[in-house]
């Protein structure tokens, strides 16, 4: 799509100019923290190989926390990219924040970085023009029922403060998240994402999906509720770790207030399997290494070591509230680059390792049956197969499981695959996500299905 003067290419300089101008307007002992998040995204939504919706999103949001002593108020504005207009909006926002600050008391949990550690990470890419990408996708989809979304372009985020710190993260990526559908709910799910579109790599992905689609053509079977030996592919493991993350399993606030689903690890010294090592691996991820109060994250925070609870993600507010040091977590204290170390089950021989049981490619819509006990429910989705002696017998109609991570990643975990997949988060709520997980598959001796 044609470039505009307000593309991400000049976003870093523009952000610096806005923060500098806002800093010059501060009075007395005011301190300003600013964050920007933006994207210029081309998107193509597809159904049955044709375009359902396609277009471009050009957006940027500036957030400001205006501090005086321990009193502060925050706000955000969308930026137009036009300097005079944006300066006026920033000044209007600052005026409103000053007005509201008069009504608030000292915030005992306020903490921001005062060591000016500036960083920059810019990942450039070779992304095809939208019409070229569409042509490639439609060619690959010919004769098949392809449904999904292609999104590409620059995303960026920055931090700046009135103390002179500047942090910048920018990447140009593409992401094709799609299924080949066979019929009703039987589909082969796949993802092709990266910085550089490669036709051979894309063709390999298409070939993998086509082979899985062929396996789905057998008549599906209904399995009765019960316990089954199960292999969870990395995408299925991701659903479990994502649910745990959303509900504070790795966050300090949820631990301190006893809301973590890993509560039994704190109170009863329950452990996961000694095979399980979980960390926040910022150094190996694709997310920014700084957070909204200006703290720079360590490359790695160990969360569970050999199955034993080790540490949590601590936001600046939690650090103040609970009297510990922050490790640069965001306010939500959720991992953005979670990693589980691989094990020793050969990835290319998981079918043989499973033998007879369920191969679960994807799980879906997880939630808790009993959060304090980490009892979790959810559905199988897309390609789930019944295997006999390492061979596919038939696709399985959707099943509801109800089990706990203390079994699935605990006493019933037989092994993890010897390689881990990098799974980019395809979420686009508000803006394209930069989160990712690096996960192996998990071989489980028994998983409980209830419906």
């Amino acid at each position, binding site marked *: 799509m044609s470039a505009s003067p307000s593309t991400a290419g000049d976003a870093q300089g523009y952000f610096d100019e806005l923060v500098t101008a806002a800093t010059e307007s501060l009075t007395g002992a005011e301190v300003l923290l600013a964050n920007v998040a933006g994207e210029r995204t081309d998107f193509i939504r597809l159904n049955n190989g*044709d375009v359902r919706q396609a277009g471009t999103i050009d957006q940027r949001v500036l957030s400001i926390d205006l501090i005086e002593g321990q009193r502060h108020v925050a706000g955000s504005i969308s930026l137009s990219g036009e300097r005079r207009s944006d300066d006026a909006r920033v000044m209007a926002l600052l005026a409103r924040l000053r007005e509201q600050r008069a009504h608030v008391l000292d915030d005992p949990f306020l903490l921001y970085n005062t060591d000016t550690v500036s960083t920059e990470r810019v990942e450039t890419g070779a992304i095809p023009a939208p019409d070229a990408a569409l042509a490639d996708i439609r060619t690959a989809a010919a004769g098949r029922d392809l449904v999904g979304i292609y999104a590409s372009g620059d995303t960026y985020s920055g931090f700046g403060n009135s103390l002179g710190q500047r942090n910048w993260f920018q990447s140009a990526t593409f992401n094709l998240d799609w299924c080949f559908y066979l019929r009703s709910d039987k589909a082969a799910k796949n993802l092709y994402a990266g910085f550089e579109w490669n036709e051979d790599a894309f063709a390999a992905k298409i070939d993998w999906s086509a082979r899985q689609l062929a396996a789905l053509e057998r008549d599906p079977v209904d399995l009765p509720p019960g316990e089954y030996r199960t292999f969870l592919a990395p995408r299925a493991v991701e659903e479990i770790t994502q649910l745990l993350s959303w509900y504070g399993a790795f966050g300090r606030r949820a631990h301190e207030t006893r*809301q973590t689903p890993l509560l039994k690890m704190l109170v009863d010294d329950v452990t996961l399997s000694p095979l399980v090592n979980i960390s926040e691996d910022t150094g190996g991820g694709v997310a920014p290494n700084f957070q909204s109060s200006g703290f720079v994250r360590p490359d790695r925070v160990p969360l569970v070591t050999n199955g034993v609870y080790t540490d949590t993600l601590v936001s600046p507010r939690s650090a103040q509230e609970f009297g510990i040091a922050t490790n640069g977590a965001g306010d939500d204290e959720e991992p953005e680059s979670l990693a589980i170390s691989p094990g020793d089950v050969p990835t290319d021989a998981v079918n043989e390792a499973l033998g007879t049981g369920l191969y679960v490619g994807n799980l879906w819509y997880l939630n808790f049956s009993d959060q304090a*006990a980490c009892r979790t429910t959810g559905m199988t989705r897309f390609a789930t197969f019944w295997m006999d002696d390492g061979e596919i017998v038939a696709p399985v109609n959707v099943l509801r499981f109800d089990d706990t991570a203390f079994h699935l990643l605990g006493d019933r975990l037989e092994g993890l695959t010897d390689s881990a997949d990098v799974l980019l988060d395809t979420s686009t709520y508000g803006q394209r996500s930069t989160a990712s997980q690096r996960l192996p598959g998990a071989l489980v001796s028994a998983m409980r299905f209830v419906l």
Partner: protein
Amino acid sequence: MLIDSPVGSSELEGRLRAALPADVDHASARLVDERAEHLRVRRHELDPIFNQFDTGVMITIWHGGGIGYAATSDLSESGVARAVDTAREWARITAGAMVTTAAPSGHAVGSYESPVEVSWDSMPLADRLDLLHQQSRLLGIDDRIVDWSASLVRREVDQLLLTTSRDGGEGRVEQRFRFLYPGLRATANEGTNTQTRTFGATAFCGQGGAEVLGRFGFGDAATRIAEQSLELLSAPNCPSGVMELLLAPDQMVLQIHESIGHPLELDRILGDERNYAGTSFVTTDMFGSFPYGSDLLNVTFDPTVPGQLASYGFDDDGTPARRQHLIENGVLVRGLGGEVSQERSGVPGVANSRATSWNRPPIDRMANLNVEPGDSTVDELVNSIEDGVYMHTNTSWSIDDSRNKFQFGCEYGQRVVDGEIVGTVRNPGYRGVSSTFWRNLTGVADRDSFTVMGTPNCGKGELNQQVGTGHASPACLFADVEVFGGEQ
């Protein structure tokens, strides 16, 4: 300039109108301005007040068999012109490759404004903060209550939809929404037992001003919420078994949403959502004959309910909205699909083509989806139960991608035996199958328990979108449901 909405600015409207090209089949500019204030007191301390101001426009062009979207927050003359060029280019690229080329028919002219009885601005910020601190004191009443909070979110959203087409037609729809989302939460803990009670989860919200607080009894709820969180600590786990299930309105919200609302969305039935939100067990041939529920089940799409979260005058394609039955006396009669989906599917629908904001194209969404009241009192329903559980306030939800096999968890349960409530149970949950569950509806309470609520964050779509949907319901009774409790 942050406080005054650009919707209503004649200069900006003139700029957008002038930018819409006259040489294309159909074009629209959808301007959205959102202003929000987030207030929360947690454990007696005020979180940083957060103010949100977001403005932008979505340009859409239908031309020559293609459709293009371009969203921008640059509302300058050159910014809007670039967006028009971008949308036009997308229409060129997609020509001949579209699932559908249907454009909204006609050009609507009209307006809508949320009913506001007591302006939120009549309550100064200091008073709003005092109210939250007061609630915090009522919540944090015991050392076993380890976390608690009181919150208020106020949102104002103004929208202007301008349309034009080659034949010279022009439309203009202006809508001004005022929302309030109150929240209360208390979490109690003893050992490995943690229990949370809330103010209707997130369901007690709506359009209006400060009167929304009184609508749900915000000022009287904190003490009950705190006491019930403590009560749950010593309550037994909900029993397991197949039994009768009475659902309070603040659980019915999610039951309606997940197992009636989503399955009836025509874009799911047409396959648009299969890669993300999922498909549906409902097929186009079921409309007009499928027995979705017992004959007690009457479900309306009703964007005209005053003060409900998703009331509006027009959807984001400009289609006028009105009350229509989706399920009548148990029979499925109509789907949840806007004009485009109706044309694609041949199924009758409603005015529900909606976008989360200026930066997303509209798709089929729920709006207000309500179970109409019956003629039993809640006491009569309780008295009719031999062996069952009365569940309140959603805390967990999960359903398969065809919206059939579901499981829900609630915050608070009451055991009912031989027509009497005999005690409180914790971690109550139940599971079932949509296509059979609603046929086991055996009782619908009357208007006394009918509560007008909403779900603020319904996720769907690629690109992902979150919108507010409204749900109203009385308490409802179901037979032969698989019920369970915690641990096991």
